[in-house]
C-alpha cells in the first residue's frame, strides 16, 4: 500500500497514481500491493452501463425514428403527387428538398452531441444548402450569395470564437473582427468590384471598433450598472452611425462635414456628458459617504 508523495494520503492497494493529483506511484510491486475490491465496480469499457441514461438515449432514439418516419411519408407523398400531377404545373423536387433539409434540422439536434458550436455549425451548413438549393431552382444563383455571406458572418462572429481551445477572448475577438471585415468586403465585391468598402465601410468599422475598445477598457473588471452599459452601447452606436455619414461625405467629395447625422452627434455628446457626470457624481458621493464604489 503506497502513499502519494505530493498529497501524503494513503492509496488503495494496487493504485498506480494518486486520484487527487495524478502523481504516478513509483515503488516496488510489494509496496503498491495487490489490487483489492475497488470502491465501485469499473464501468463497462463501451460506456454503456445499465443505468438511467440508457433510457434517455432510448427516448431520443424514438424521436429520431419518428422524425425519419415523418420525413419518409412526406417525401413519398410528394413524389407520388409529382408523378400524378402534370409535370409543367407541379414539380416535387423543391418541396422534397425542403422537407429533407427541414428534417435534417430536427435530426441534427437529436443525433449529435447537444453542444452549441456543433449544432450551430450543422445548422449553418444545412441553411446554406437549403438557400442555395432554393435559389438554384430557377437554374441561376443570385440572392443566395448575400445570404451565404450573412450566415458566414454569423458563424465567424458567434460560433467560431466558442470553438477555440486556447485564449478564447483574444482569438475569438480577432475572429469576430476578421469575419465582419470579410463580410463587408464580400458584400461590396458582389456588386462588381470594390467601391465603398475601403473609403466608407472600413473606416466606419474601425471607428466603432475603437469605441468598443475604449468601452471595454473602461468597464474591464468592474461591475457596471445596467443603465451605464446600455448608454455606453448607445453612445458607440451613435458614433458609428455618425462616422458613417462623415466618411460617405468624404467619399463623394462633399465639402460639408456632416449632413443628416448632426442630430446623432448631438445625442452622442449628450450621452457622453451624462455618463461622465454620472460617474463623477457617484465617485464624489462615495468619497464623502465612505462607501466602496462597486
Amino acid at each position, binding site marked *: 500500500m503506497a502513499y502519494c508523495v505530493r498529497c501524503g494520503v494513503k492509496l488503495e492497494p494496487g493504485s498506480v497514481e494518486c486520484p487527487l*493529483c495524478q502523481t504516478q506511484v513509483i515503488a516496488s510491486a510489494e509496496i503498491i500491493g495487490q489490487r483489492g475490491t475497488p470502491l465501485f465496480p469499473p464501468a463497462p469499457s463501451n460506456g454503456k452501463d445499465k443505468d438511467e441514461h440508457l433510457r434517455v438515449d432510448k427516448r431520443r432514439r424514438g424521436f429520431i425514428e419518428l422524425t425519419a418516419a415523418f420525413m419518409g411519408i412526406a417525401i413519398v407523398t410528394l413524389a407520388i403527387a409529382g408523378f400524378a400531377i402534370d409535370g409543367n404545373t407541379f414539380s416535387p423536387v423543391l418541396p422534397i428538398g425542403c422537407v429533407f433539409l427541414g428534417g435534417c434540422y430536427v435530426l441534427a439536434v437529436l443525433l449529435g452531441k447537444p453542444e452549441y458550436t456543433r449544432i450551430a455549425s450543422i445548422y449553418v451548413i444545412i441553411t446554406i444548402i437549403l438557400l442555395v438549393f432554393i435559389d438554384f431552382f430557377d437554374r441561376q444563383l443570385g440572392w443566395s450569395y448575400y445570404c451565404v455571406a450573412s450566415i458566414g458572418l454569423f458563424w465567424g462572429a458567434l460560433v467560431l470564437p466558442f470553438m477555440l481551445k486556447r485564449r478564447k477572448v483574444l482569438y475569438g475577438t480577432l475572429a469576430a473582427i476578421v469575419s465582419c471585415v470579410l463580410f463587408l468586403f464580400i458584400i461590396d465585391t458582389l456588386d462588381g468590384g470594390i467601391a465603398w468598402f475601403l473609403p466608407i465601410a472600413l473606416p466606419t468599422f474601425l471607428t466603432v471598433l475603437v469605441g468598443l475598445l475604449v468601452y471595454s477598457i473602461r468597464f474591464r473588471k468592474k461591475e457596471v450598472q445596467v443603465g451605464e452599459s446600455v448608454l455606453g452601447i448607445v453612445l458607440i452606436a451613435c458614433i458609428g452611425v455618425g462616422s458613417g455619414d462623415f466618411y460617405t461625405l468624404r467619399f463623394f467629395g462633399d465639402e460639408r462635414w456632416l449632413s443628416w447625422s448632426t442630430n446623432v452627434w448631438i445625442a452622442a455628446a449628450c450621452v457622453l456628458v451624462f455618463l461622465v457626470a454620472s460617474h463623477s457624481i457617484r465617485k464624489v458621493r462615495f468619497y464623502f459617504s465612505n462607501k466602496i464604489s462597486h
Partner: protein
Amino acid sequence: MSRRRLEALCGSVAHKRDFTYDIPMRFTWGAEEIIPLDNAAIIYPPTLARYNSHMFRLSMDLTIPVEGSRLLVALERVMTRFPYFSVSLHQGFFWYYLTNHHKKLSVYPEHAYPCAFLDRHHGANGYLFKVFWREDRIAVEIFHALCDGTGGLVFLKSLVAEYLRLSGIEIGEDPQIFRPGTPVGRGESDDSFQHFYKPLGSVMNREPAAFHYARFEEISDRVQVISAQVGIADVKRLGTQYDCTITEYLVAELIDAFQRVQEQTVGSRKHYKPISISVPVNIRRVFDSDSMRNFTLFVTPRINPRLGYYEFEEIVQQVKFQIRGSVNIKSLSQQISRNVAGERNPLLRFAPNILKGPVMKILSDSYGDKTYSTTISNIGEVKLPSGMREVVKRADFYLSPSKSNKVSCSVVGVNGMMSINFTNFLVKQTVIEREFLTALVAKGIPVRIADNRNPHVSGR
C-alpha cells in the same frame, strides 16, 4: 445527546402540542390515496434534471457475503414496516404528489457511478428508491422527495438488520431499526414541517451569490467520487483542540479549502465572492419529531474573503458562532415559517404545475444553489446494535452534486472510522478534494483514499 444538553444548545425542546396541526396529511381521490409531498420535498421534482438528480446513497460494507435473492426477501419483509416508502411520484395539475405503490420490488447489482438520475416511472419499477448489492455491500439510493438522510439511514439499518437475521445472525435492539411486524408509528409518515409551522410572517432574505469553482475542462453526468477514510478519534481530537464539534471542524476545513481555491483561481481580491457552505441540520430532536420523511433545515455558515484572508482559527470561530446561533427553536421556526408560508401562498398553491416548475427552478437557484459554494452533510457516527457491529466494516454516504454546486461532501462514521465522500461532475479536477484532504494530512490525520475515476488501478 442528553435532553439537558440539547436544551442548552437549542434553548428549549419544542413539543407537538405547542404548534398548529390543521393540515390534513392525506386524502383520497377516487380509489387512490393522494399523499402530498412534504414541504422540503416539493422543490425536488420540478428541479429534477440530468445534472440535478437529487439522489443520495447510503451503503454498508459487510464482512459476510451478500446474496441478491436473500436481500430481496429482506427488502420485501422490511417494506411492510415502511409503508411510506411504498409510494410512487406523480405530476398533478397543481402539485406533484405521491400515491401508494405495490409493484414488484427488485434489487440491482452495484454499478460504477452512484447517485445516478432515477427515472420516476421506470427507474426502480416506479419506486423512489433503489437497492443495490455486490458481494460485500448493501446500498440504497433514495430520491430526496421521499425522505432525508436520517430516514434513509433508518431504512438501510432495518434492511441490513433483516438481511443479517435471514443469514442467521442475532441482532440486538436499536431504536433506529424497525422490525417487520412492529406497529408503524403515528408520526413516521407525517410532514413535520406542517406540524411545527407558526405563521410568523417572516421575510425572504436573499443571500448574495457565493463562490463556485468554475475552472474546469469537462463535466460528466456520471458522478465521480473521492472517498476518504479517517479515524473519528483523530478528527475529534482536532475538534477538541479548536473547541468545536466534528461537523463544525469539517465545515471550517471545507471553507478554508474553498478560500485557498478562490485565491488560486480568481485574480484580484475585489472579485472574490463570499464562501458559504450549506449544512443540513437534522431538526427531529429539536422539535421532538418521529417523521421518517424530510425534516431537515439548512444552516449556511459563510465568510467574506473580500474583507481579507481568514486564518483557520477565525474560520472556526465564524462557523461555531453561525451554526450555534442558527440551531435554536426561534431561528429554525422562522425557516419553517418561511418555507411553509411559501407553499401555502395562494398564488403558488393554485398555479398550474407547468408554470410552477420554472418558478421553483428560479427560486431554488437564487435562494439555494447560488447562495452557497457546496454542501456538507454529516450524518454522524452510526450506532449499531450487537450482532451488526461485528459484521458492518464500513458505511458510506453520498450526495448527488448539482450543476451549480459541482462538488458535494457527505460524511458518515461507523466503528471508529469516518468516510468523507466527495462527489462531483468534474471529470478531471479534484482541486477542492485535494485542498481539503491535504489539510487534514498536514494536521497529522492519516487519510486513506479511493475513487471511481479513470483507470488508476493496475490491471484494470
